[in-house]
């Protein structure tokens, strides 16, 4: 199979097949490319079949439920983190970026960190980020923009690792959210006490990325401005 060929080559051949089919209804190219790359024959034909036929009309219940959960995760969290990553990329890399076409494409960016962070904001139980969106109708970057000393990365990390966040920090966040949007403090605190992540971990086939060992490490990962990081550090020390 494709293990001896580069994924780049396979992707290029897929794209040739896709464009030939969608642009010209050409169904013969898959045969020609299969003859030229016999080791990729199965992959190429299978891709073409999926392109033409799509998924089966019926799928089992578990598959449909899983896809519905993934879609909910996309809407509540996945898109937000991707957009936040793009915002960050624009602010960091405009000097090396050249615009093109209608407007300006997103530049090569640092989305990896943000998107990795999104991986665990999942599952059927509501995350803190999803809770905020439901309660105040705002997305994570909008919430972050209106909360002093915070950014979207920090809020996402708090949502993902509430167990390393000191109670005093949670209380301060709850107070600010109440002052700003009127959400009862106890509701925010309850959401931050969620056990979702641990329940989910038990059913996963592989380990999560290494957790931050403590709140300081979480702050380091959040890429906050030094003064903001120091604010939360002081608050954590004061309460502890």
């Amino acid at each position: 199979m494709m293990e001896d060929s580069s994924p780049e080559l396979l992707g290029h051949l897929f794209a040739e097949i896709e464009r030939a089919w969608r642009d010209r209804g050409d169904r013969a190219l898959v045969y020609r490319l299969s003859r030229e790359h016999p080791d990729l024959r199965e992959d190429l034909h299978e891709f073409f079949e999926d392109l033409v036929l799509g998924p089966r009309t019926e799928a089992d219940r578990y598959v449909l439920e899983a896809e519905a959960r993934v879609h909910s995760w996309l809407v509540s969290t996945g898109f937000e983190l991707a957009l936040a990553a793009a915002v960050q990329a624009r602010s960091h890399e405009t000097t090396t970026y050249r615009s093109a076409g209608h407007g300006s494409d997103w530049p090569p960016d640092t989305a990896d960190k943000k998107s990795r962070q999104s991986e665990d904001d999942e599952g059927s139980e509501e995350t803190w980020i999803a809770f905020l969106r439901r309660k105040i109708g705002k997305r994570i970057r909008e919430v972050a923009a209106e909360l002093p000393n915070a950014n979207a990365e920090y809020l996402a990390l708090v949502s993902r690792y509430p167990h390393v966040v000191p109670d005093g920090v949670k209380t301060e966040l709850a107070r600010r959210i109440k002052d700003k949007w009127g959400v009862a403090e106890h509701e925010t605190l309850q959401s931050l006490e969620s056990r979702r992540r641990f329940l989910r971990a038990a059913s996963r086939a592989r380990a999560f990325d290494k957790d931050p060992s403590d709140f300081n490490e979480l702050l380091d990962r959040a890429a906050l401005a030094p003064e903001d990081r120091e604010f939360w550090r002081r608050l954590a020390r004061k309460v502890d």
Partner: protein
Amino acid sequence: MEETPTGKPDPFPYEEVFQALPPLGSAEYLEHIGNVPAEQLPPEVLVRALRQLPPNGEAARATLDRLFRRAGERWEYLGPLVARARRMRLNPHEEYEDLIQDTLTTILKALPTAKGHFAARAWHSFCRVQLSDAWREHHGRRGERLEHRAEAPPEAEGADETPDPVADLSYSPPWHGTLEENQVETIEAIAEQVVGEIDDEFVRAIAKVTWFSNERRPKVSGSGGSNEVPALTTRFPKKSRFQIHRAIRQANGQLAAALLANHSLEWTPGLQAMLEKLRDS
């Protein structure tokens, strides 16, 4: 216009559709991408728009919403990706959800980067590559081999002990019982042409047996009763049930493509039913 690695020009494939969009980010744009049918709004156009929109505006979010929208239980722009992932027999079941989510994570991760340029040229190829990348993340460097193994159903050895639903499947010519009478001849002519073009001897033989045998259709496997014709595993004893299934799907994919690309065909409900039959093969 950009160039491919081989130096060939790489024009945007849907330039006219893209240029016909309302001004990016306008209220008209939001209404347009929310309402236009998927067939008239290629995913590559959405990706290109997304890459040009300010990421902190409503339009970028709306564009992502549309690109990953579900119509009922169907993903509008992720059909080929989901088709591949669903066929992979993942155990435990949770792996399926993880794989889909990880794939979408890598897609979201890549869209704003240079890799996203590929998505704006050939969306389904891009998604398929991300699926393989996510699979490799799960299974390491030898993941490609496992990827194919994961798709294969259990082989016949265990069939004596465990009821095998595959053995009860039978195949009939896809146009039987679906097509309007006046179309049968046309479809059979197209199917004949497709068979003649298939370059793999085994796939060609499977297509002939499943499409043109005048007797009752053979089952994939199993001995069958006295009234039944030999199963395909009996007719092709050196081939596994998985290989037979793959051959059927490959042949059916080519037949479906031939029908879809034939603009002189009248697209009747019977023809649509036949296409669905091919899809579910």
